[in-house]
């Protein structure tokens, strides 16, 4: 069953027969807050992270950047359900963008379009 809503504000609901895709709302936090990326550079960064952690198989994982707000560096990603663990783990361990430190904050994950 779902975890009770605790002090961390994290609430997890697991649906067994959801859609074939998973949607993730993520925010990229950079050391230099003035730096800007476009959607292509963001996708390239994520593919680099997948390739480092999960190799050629990871880099071939199909995912889409559905929405990207260049101002706040917030994006909605879509990946097939079987690839969620690979994508999420790659985002977690992605520590650098072009020699400056960075971090992906995962704001929301859902089986339905955000």
């Amino acid at each position, binding site marked *: 069953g779902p975890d009770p809503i605790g002090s961390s504000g994290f609430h997890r609901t697991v649906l067994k027969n959801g859609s074939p895709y998973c949607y993730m709302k993520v925010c990229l936090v950079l050391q230099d807050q003035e730096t800007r990326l476009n959607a292509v550079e963001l996708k390239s960064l994520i593919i680099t992270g997948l390739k480092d*952690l*999960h*190799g050629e198989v990871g880099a071939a994982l199909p995912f889409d950047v559905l929405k990207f707000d260049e101002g706040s560096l917030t994006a909605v990603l879509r990946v097939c359900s079987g690839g969620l663990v690979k994508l999420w783990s790659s985002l977690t361990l992605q520590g650098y963008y072009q020699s400056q430190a960075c971090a992906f904050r995962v704001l929301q994950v859902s089986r339905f379009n955000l």
Partner: protein
Amino acid sequence: MVPHILSFARYLLCEVNVSDMNDLFLLNDQAVAAAVKAAVARIHGDYGAALCSIRFQVKYLNAHTGIVFLRFPKSCYKLLWSALPFITHINSRGQKIPCFLNCLHVGGTIRTCQKFLIRYNTQQLHRMLPKCKNEGEKQQIRQAILGCFIPGGNKEACEDDIECEEDEGE
């Protein structure tokens, strides 16, 4: 009596195929291990390399036939197995030997792999018999076939094998 096994393994019986049979003598277990680790790191990244760094071993290598036993943990052997077809060469003693790996058998213990290898070699010898050019070669092969047996017999350790060969429901 069932032995208490702390970590299950899968033994992959593979054949190293080379174009020039003499190249096999350049191989050693470190060279094969390095080639497997490099392929796993390339195909499955840091995650695969970490899986390979513990409890992966080349258990046996026969430089005459190119047969090698690879030991993987049972929990991740399918992932590591999937990287083996991407091996295109093995580096040994400064030479780059083009080859590919052919997986013949997966067993839960070295013993089951040995039993398979003996049956396989016997079948290969039977296939060679009609191709013999003279009676002398035929006699040699017949002697070799009669000499095929597993040391220690087939009866013991059957329970071990069944215990180890059970696959997790996946």
